[in-house]
């Protein structure tokens, strides 16, 4: 039990520090144009990586291929047809759940 509460306390402290670090260290400054260019590209890089890790990452961080893949393909189809975000998420959930039920 003490082990569990140690993890909770460490997570509270480290999460708060990591979230505050960027805004506190750099907040309010005008960044040079080249740095701004890098910052502008963080979003596509991070989002693409999150798609990959959330699709192929197991809960322990390992690589796995499972029913989330057809789910994501379904969401991609919705987006290709200019469907909304929520519809894409609903389709991903339904296809993933359906694949698990069938196979």
């Amino acid at each position: 039990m003490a082990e569990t509460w140690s993890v909770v306390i460490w997570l509270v402290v480290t999460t708060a520090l990591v979230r505050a670090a960027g805004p506190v260290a750099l907040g309010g400054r005008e960044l040079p144009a080249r740095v701004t260019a890098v910052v502008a590209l963080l979003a596509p890089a991070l989002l693409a990586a999150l798609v990959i890790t959330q699709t192929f990452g197991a809960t322990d961080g390992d690589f796995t291929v499972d029913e989330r893949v057809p789910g994501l393909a379904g969401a991609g189809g919705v987006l290709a047809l200019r469907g909304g975000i929520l519809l894409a998420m609903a389709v991903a959930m339904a296809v993933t759940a359906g694949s698990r039920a069938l196979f």
Partner: protein
Amino acid sequence: MRRESVRAGFRVGVPFAVAAALLAASFGILAEPVFGAPATLVMSALVFAGSAQFGALAVLGGGGGVAAAVIAAVLLNARYLPMGIALAPSLRGGWLRRALYGEALLDASWAMANRGEGRFDPDFLVGATLPCYPAWVAGTAIGLYAGDWIGDPAEWGLDALFPAFFLALLVGGELRRGRTAVIVALLGAGVALALLPFAPAGIPVIAASGVALLGLFTGHTQETEHPEIEEDPVG
């Protein structure tokens, strides 16, 4: 704080709060046998970071120690560093005020508050996070105390919600910002995919953010197109 931005963010954040509650319920179900109900609830209330919580749970549940669980969680949370750095130039005020804005960082809120060319709407970010916090805590409680009724969260396909969400933000927003953004997204995905089988959890996303350094050479903001981004990206 601009109230209209907070309200707009809140409206956009509500559907994602529902998704967060579903994920939190699955966290509550899985964490209860490992952490116990009180620690699980306190963790969700005070940490409020899904990937780190799931990561710590996976390590401890798999027989790992405190240090391994904390390191996994820190690595998974480390993406908030580049996110915070990206947000920082849009913040004003003293260090405490800026730190509090940083505490509102969530993947979804950060992405939806992105206005392109390195600019963010911090009040919109806070608004989008506001409904997610009670949803996360309440969802955890539901998972803890109604887990038997819900069953296995994987059967509901809940783990497909957020990859689809990030894909939608990428396709609907970032990839419309120009060719450089498309190249960076492809490279970022490639880096994450290449590292995922080998690197510790959290490292693939951090490494992928390094691809943004291409901006040093491309002058991306000068060539950025100006996509007609819908005011409500949830649409």
